C-alpha cells in the first residue's frame, strides 16, 4: 500500500490562516483532496490530504508555518449506509485505536476514503494487510 502522508499545520484561531494556506497551494498547483480542522483552547491544527505533499510541506515551511508530515491510513469504504461501520469494525477487530479520522469523498455515493491517524502506523498497516480492504493509491488519481 502507498505511504499516504498527511500535512498538519498549527494555527492560532484567527482569520485568514486557511486563506493563506490555500493561496500558497494555488500558486504551487497543489490539489487539496481532503481537509479537517480541529480547534480547541484558542488554537487549532489543520490537517490536509494533498497530491504533492512534499512540495506542500516545503512551501508552508518556507512561508513560516509550523508544519509537519505524518503517515496515515487511507482506507476505501462505500459511500453508503454501513460503509463506515464495516471499516471501523475491522479496525476494532484488529485492536487499532483511532486517534483522529476524517473522510475523503472521491465521488459522492460511490467512493470514499476514511483517513485514520493511529499511534503505531507500521503495526496497523501490517495487521490490516491481511484484511480484505482497499487502500488509497496516489497513482489511481494520477497524482504525485
Amino acid at each position: 500500500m502507498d505511504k499516504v502522508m498527511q500535512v498538519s499545520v498549527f494555527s492560532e484561531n484567527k482569520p485568514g490562516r486557511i486563506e493563506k494556506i490555500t493561496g500558497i497551494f494555488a500558486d504551487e498547483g497543489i490539489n487539496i483532496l481532503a481537509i479537517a480542522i480541529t480547534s480547541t483552547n484558542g488554537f487549532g491544527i489543520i490537517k490536509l490530504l494533498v497530491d504533492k505533499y512534499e512540495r506542500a510541506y516545503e512551501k508552508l515551511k518556507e512561508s513560516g508555518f509550523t508544519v509537519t508530515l505524518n503517515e496515515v491510513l487511507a482506507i476505501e469504504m462505500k459511500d453508503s449506509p454501513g460503509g463506515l461501520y464495516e471499516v471501523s469494525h475491522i479496525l476494532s477487530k484488529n485492536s487499532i485505536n483511532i486517534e483522529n479520522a476524517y473522510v475523503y469523498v472521491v465521488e459522492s455515493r460511490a467512493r470514499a476514503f476514511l483517513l485514520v491517524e493511529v499511534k503505531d502506523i507500521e503495526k496497523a498497516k501490517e495487521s490490516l494487510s491481511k484484511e480484505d480492504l482497499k487502500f488509497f493509491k496516489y497513482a489511481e488519481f494520477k497524482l504525485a
Partner: protein
Amino acid sequence: MKAPEIIRPDSYWQKQDEIIGKEALATLQLEHLTKSLRRVYSNVPFYHTRFDEAGLDPENIKSLEDIRRLSFTTSDDLRANYPFGLLAVSKDEVVRVHTSSGTTGRAKAICFSKNDIECSATLIARCLVMTGTGKGDILQNMMTYGLFTGALIMHYGAEKVGALVIPAGPGNTERQIQLMRDFGTTVIHITPSYSLYLASALQQKGIDPRKDLNLRRAYLGAEPYSEETRKKIEAIYGIDVYNSYGLTEMSGPGVAFECGYKNGMHLWEDHFFAEIIDPETGEVLEDGQEGELVLTSLRREAMPLIRYRTRDITKIITGVCECGRTHRRISRILGRSDDMFVVKGVNVFPQQIEQVLMGIKGVAQNYQILLESYDHLTIRVEIAKELFDGNIEHLLQLQTEITDKVRADILVKPKIELLEPGALPVSEGKAKRVIDNRTM
C-alpha cells in the same frame, strides 16, 4: 464626597508611642537600631561581612545617619540566603515562616519569633484603633490566608483589639456576600480590584451595599490604586476606605496606615527606620522628594533587615498630621522601581515566568505577559517549530504543562495562549515582555 470619618482623638492603641515627641522618637530609634545592629553583627554572618566591608563597628554607632555607611539589603540577598541564612536567632525561636511566591532559589522566606508576631499584631492594633475598629466590630478578612502575611497578620491584630474576625479568605463571592449579610460585617480587608468586583456582584444581586449591608469601612492593600478608585469605592459602598501598606519582608501589613484624615499613611517609626532614596544612585533624598522607600527594622528579632530596598516608590509627606500622631506619613505607593507586578494580590516578577517557560520543552524563546485586570493573567507563548508533530493532544498537554508549572511558581493560574512561532514582535535589545493594560 462624604466627609471623612474623623476618629475621636483619644482613639489610640498605644497613645504614648503614637504621639511620641520628635526627639524622644529619634532617641528611641537610635537605641533600638544600635541593639539591632549589634545583634545582626554577632549573629548573622551576612551582615557581619557587610559591617566589616564598610569598616563599621556596631559599637560605634553614634547617630541614625551612620547607618548610611552600610550598603542596602536587596531581595536578591534574601533569595540568596533562603531559607534560614539571615536568621539572627536560633531556629528554635522561630515560630512562623512566611514566604513570597516563587520556588526554591527564587522565593523569599521571612521568619518570625514569638515577639515578632506580637509586634506585628500590635502595629495592626494601632492601625485598627486609629481608624475606629475595635470590640463589637466584625471584620471580614478577604486576603489570602497561608504563606502570605496579609491575612494572618491582620487576623492577629484584629483579635488583639477584640474585633470578631471572619477568616473568609479571598474569592467565593457568593459566600462572601452571604457572610457579610448574615454576620453584619462592619469592616472588610480586601484588595482594591476585588472590592470593585464584589460591588458589581452585589449590584447584580440587587443588594445595595449602602442600605442592605452593615459596612462601615474597608482596608485596602496589596495592589496599587488611585485616589479616584478610593472615592469610587467609598461612594459605592457608602463607607470609609483606608490605605494600608506593608510587605512580608517587614512583617506584612501594618507598616504604614492611614488615619481618619486619609492624607498619607503613618509609618510606625518606632518599629521601622525609613529612608527615601534615588533608586538609580542610591542617594538619600530629602523629605517630600519622590523616591524608593528603604526600611530598616528596629525591633525584629528573628530576621532583622538593615536598609531593605522595598522597590516601592513613594515620598514622605511633610508637616504635622491633625490626628496628633507624630509618626511621619508616606504617600500612597506611586509605582515600583523594578518590573514586579501584582495579580490576584500576589507579587510576581516576569523573570519567574521566564524561567519556568524556558525550562519547558516545546516552548520557543519568545513570550509575552498580558495584564488586562488585577485578577487575571494571560501568557502568550510561541511554540517550538521543531517539536510540532501535528498531534493536538500533545499541544493540549503542553498548554496544561505550562499552566501547571507557572501556577506552581507564581501561585496564580495563568491563561496560556499558544502562538505560531514568529507571531510575537521581536524587539532589539530588551524585549518588552509585560503588556500592562490595567488602569487603577
